[in-house]
């Protein structure tokens, strides 16, 4: 007998800065809305295990989306996107969040994002905490460490990851190097497969936000967790954002939650969901406790 999963997919058309985007999403569960942001150059499928996890979906309406240009979300259908370089910005990410929340009529959702999505958790905490009930940053930090961001988005990253003479497998191979060594081989291959099939130049364009737009230096101490709690989780094997990088952010955000996740790397949700879950569940239980009686 065929096995169906409790995940439903759909498309929503969102207009941002006058351009309409056809956006794919998958959702499962009921309860507190829970938005799930994928990593740079990837897609919402990274959350497939979470969307199938009844321990989470019994209390949270989990929605994983593919940003425009990612996964099943095509570039804008009525805009000549190919006439300019694709570059992701903080401004676009924040407007996307607003448009998505409005379209689904979500009331103060929780949010979780990984890598660039982890950075975004901190940016949302700084810019618009009143819109969320909780923000969870995975592999996020104050600013991308200089050894990763020393190149501008217009040179080395594009040369390596938007280069017609370099095959797509280079990107998966690069991501393979920041996965924890304990990761089951099948999950490791799932991550690299996902990257190998990403849209041309999209990873490099996303890095514009990751390396440049995101910078809370001199600002993070103004984040008020009284308005919205900020949870920060980082894998011990992540060389892109080391636990000490995340802790630097946590130290500046008074009252925030920080936990190092042993034996996980830059893609904790996908590398080993069962292990990741041991770190996630205490956070979700804390969110439920804080939201009790508020909805």
């Amino acid at each position: 007998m065929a096995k169906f999963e409790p995940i439903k997919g759909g498309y929503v058309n969102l207009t941002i800065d006058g351009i309409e985007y056809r956006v794919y999403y998958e959702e499962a569960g009921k309860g507190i809305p829970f938005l799930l942001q994928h990593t740079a150059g990837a897609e919402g499928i990274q959350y497939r295990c979470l969307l199938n996890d009844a321990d989470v979906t019994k209390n949270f309406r989990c929605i994983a989306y593919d940003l425009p240009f990612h996964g099943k979300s095509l570039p804008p259908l009525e805009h000549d996107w190919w006439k300019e370089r694709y570059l992701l910005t903080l401004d676009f990410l924040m407007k996307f969040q607003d448009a998505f929340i409005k379209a689904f009529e979500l009331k103060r959702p929780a949010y979780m994002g990984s890598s660039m999505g982890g950075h975004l958790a901190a940016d949302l905490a700084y810019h618009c905490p009143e819109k969320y009930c909780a923000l969870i940053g995975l592999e996020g930090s104050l600013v991308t460490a200089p050894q990763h961001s020393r190149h501008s988005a217009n040179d080395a990253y594009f040369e390596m990851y938007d280069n017609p003479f370099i095959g797509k497998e280079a990107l998966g191979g690069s991501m393979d190097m920041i996965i924890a060594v304990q990761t089951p081989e099948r999950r490791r291959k799932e991550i690299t497969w996902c990257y190998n099939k990403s849209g041309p130049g999209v990873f490099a364009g996303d890095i514009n936000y990751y390396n440049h737009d995101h910078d809370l230096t001199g600002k993070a101490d103004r984040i008020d967790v009284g308005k919205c709690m900020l949870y920060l989780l980082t894998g011990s094997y992540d060389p892109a954002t080391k636990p000490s990088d995340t802790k630097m952010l946590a130290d500046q955000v008074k009252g925030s939650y920080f936990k190092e996740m042993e034996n996980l790397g830059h893609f904790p949700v996908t590398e080993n969901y069962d292990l990741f879950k041991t770190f996630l569940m205490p956070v979700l239980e804390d969110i439920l406790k804080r939201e009790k009686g508020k909805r």
Partner: protein
Amino acid sequence: MKEFLEICGKDYEFVHTIRYWTGSYKLGFGDKIYLIRFKNGKIDGFEENVPADTAATCWTVGPVRTWEEMLKPIPKPGFNSFRPAMFYHDMKLSQGNAVIQFPMLNRFLVLLRSYYNGGVN
């Protein structure tokens, strides 16, 4: 090295990563430097004790202390692959167009770690 490269040549995953490739890989363990050649997707021999400035398509050259940590069965964070070792432990890793060899380097390291620890992968 000869025995190890024979293992690589029989490993489907490794052979797949070098398909159609003609080039060379410089592998440096401290002062001990090898040059492995590839031709049309096959291993085409190697040289040992080549000069440090020998030209190659791609390379991983690092201190012995870094390699010793990287080749442990479960390396510590920062030593699990070439990029973290480059960021934090003085490993020189070819960049630019040479990133196309990253899948080969990843499989090479997995096989080398297994070989170094007496295992068969």
